[in-house]
């Protein structure tokens, strides 16, 4: 049996360096936040032609897509009863919760009147896709808080409330799957209103389906990536069959998404545009998200190695985020001569939000029982990054 150093201890210099790194990014983000709220949205590169930019595409739409692991894993374990994945449900729900909190934070930066965000709850306008998305995100974040709360409450010693909440697990999971299906698809549905302002390589009546399928496809990869990184940081072993299962499920889901996406492009007659204007962005997006990951996963050596799955997972995740960015920004049809690229304030705030999410995740993993105790693992030799020149201590 291998045991490894847990980097998430007070004394570990790696832990300190990691947290200082995150806090440094957040400090820069805080300065950008000051500029944003002191001088308004004019400090960004957004304009009348590009009312939505990096924050909506990446922080909100990307963040919500990458948080889809929470409902997918809860569905797998609690409804489909595939219990071998039980040990990754908690980390997936934690990631989901942090993803949604980050998305909401991103919305608060982006709204011109952020102090009025509660208006959506009072002044109803059910014809609006934005109204539906807002309600689903609110309700699903509540579901995630209730799903995650027992872990925190038990740590605080409030086990009666915790066990009450646990008894609600199945209805909460069902509500979570319904809400997620609705708003993961409706985020793509937001763009349906603008058939003439979104380039045909991204505009499609299937946008809701494509957004939902791509979010589901990235879910197993996000769960695998966080398992691999956490196991490295915590010095835990990795569960071979779980990671392999996630990789296999992810591959099938990528084939499904890629098939629907390409089929949609060809059948809608966007075929001629496939090599025309803006198509480079499409090919980079599809290569990152579908082609390259599927190619990598076709090699058994990569499929079975944590490093291989880690790289593949990061590719898929960046591909999904690029898909959201392309749909919102690249695809926008604007008057000639107008362009948009995010400026440093926008990047600094996005980076700050991501750093805040990672900081919360690190603290949670360190202080709460997110990953099950070591004893249950060890079917597979613990993973150490090849870059590390550390030799496992053998007992």
């Amino acid at each position, binding site marked *: 049996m291998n045991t490894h150093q847990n980097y998430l201890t007070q004394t570990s210099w790696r832990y300190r360096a990691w947290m200082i790194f995150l806090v440094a990014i957040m400090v820069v983000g805080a300065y950008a936040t000051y500029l944003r709220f002191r001088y308004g949205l004019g400090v960004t590169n957004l304009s009348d032609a590009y*009312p939505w930019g990096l924050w909506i595409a990446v922080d909100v739409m990307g963040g919500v897509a990458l948080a889809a692991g929470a409902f997918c894993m809860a569905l797998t374990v609690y409804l489909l009863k595939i219990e071998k994945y039980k040990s990754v449900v908690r980390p997936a729900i934690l990631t989901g919760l942090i993803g949604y909190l980050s998305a909401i934070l991103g919305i608060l930066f982006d709204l011109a009147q952020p102090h009025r965000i509660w*208006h959506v709850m009072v*002044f109803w306008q059910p014809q609006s*896709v*934005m109204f539906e998305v807002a309600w689903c995100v609110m309700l699903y974040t509540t579901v995630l808080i209730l799903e995650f709360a027992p872990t925190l409450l038990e740590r605080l010693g409030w086990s009666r409330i915790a066990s009450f909440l646990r008894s609600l697990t199945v209805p909460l999971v069902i509500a979570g799957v319904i809400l997620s299906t609705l708003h993961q698809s409706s985020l793509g*549905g937001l763009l*349906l*209103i603008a058939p003439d302002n979104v380039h045909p390589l991204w505009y499609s009546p299937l946008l809701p389906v494509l957004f939902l399928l791509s979010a589901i496809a990235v879910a197993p990869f996000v769960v695998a990536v966080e398992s691999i990184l956490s196991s490295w940081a915590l010095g835990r072993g990795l569960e071979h069959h779980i990671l392999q299962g996630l990789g296999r499920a992810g591959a099938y889901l990528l084939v499904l998404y890629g098939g629907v996406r390409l089929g949609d492009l060809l059948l809608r007659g966007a075929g001629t545009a496939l090599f025309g204007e803006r198509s480079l962005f499409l090919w980079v997006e599809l290569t990152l998200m579908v082609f390259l990951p599927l190619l990598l996963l076709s090699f058994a050596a990569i499929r079975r190695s944590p490093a291989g799955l880690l790289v593949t997972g990061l590719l898929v995740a960046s591909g999904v985020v690029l898909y959201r960015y392309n749909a919102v920004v690249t695809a926008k049809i604007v008057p000639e001569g107008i362009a948009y690229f995010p400026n440093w304030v926008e990047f600094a705030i996005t980076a700050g939000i991501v750093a805040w999410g990672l900081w919360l995740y690190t603290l949670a993993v360190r202080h709460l029982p997110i990953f099950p105790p070591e004893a249950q693992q060890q079917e597979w030799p613990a993973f150490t990054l090849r870059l590390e020149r550390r030799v496992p201590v053998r007992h």
Partner: protein
Amino acid sequence: MANPISRRCFLAGLVVGACSSGRLLEGRAAEQTVGMLYDVTRCIGCGLCERACEEQNQLPEGRAYVDVLRAENGRERCLRRACMHCLDPACVSACPVGALQKTPQGPVIYRRELCIGCRYCMVACPLGIPRLNWEENSPYIQKCQMCADRIAQGEPPACVSACPTGALQFGLRAELLKCAKERLAEEKLYLFGEHELGGTSVLYLSDVPFADLGLHCQRQEPLPKFTAGMLQKVPWVVGALALGLSGLYFMRRRQKSGEDEDKDKD
């Protein structure tokens, strides 16, 4: 300009404009809503409509809700750019808090006290009309509201009153449309707004194709139906998933307990 508006048509516009008071307009059918007719052939690009708009809405110079693109840089005619007040507006269906509303009289108005600043209306508008004061700390959407207050008091919008050439007329949309069609029958003209985007309250008449003037929109159907289809499915998706997922859970639980019993027997 070469195509003077017919006397009958011009007078009809004036008469209708003068008698369409707010009281008369209450509870009218859809074809009885007010609108505006903009005649490209008569617009000289003087900019008096822009000044009047700034004054009426207390806007800083250059921030009028109406923008006249002057006849220059290859553009053959002037073109007024402002809200067309669609009959079934994309922005109204997009707004999550109902800050944009289509009034029964015809204008699409903006209630800034409700706006959260999500800018989905800007994404939704096919003509790029709603704008934001990006330089302000807590900005609102900027958009023509057809001087709905003035209309309610029986006055035409400020820009119409200011127009010195009669290029802008105010009146019942149905009447203005009739005038426009009479003109179409007489000479080779182009009409925008009868069917475009499902119809707009503001109609444009031109002697050159609108695409040449930079107005490219050719879509005939109203945009809200593009999202309505998805939203109508929501109750069905909720119902089907609730039933399906509960069924799945109980089925799998029974299977599992069966398996466990088998194991116990072994």
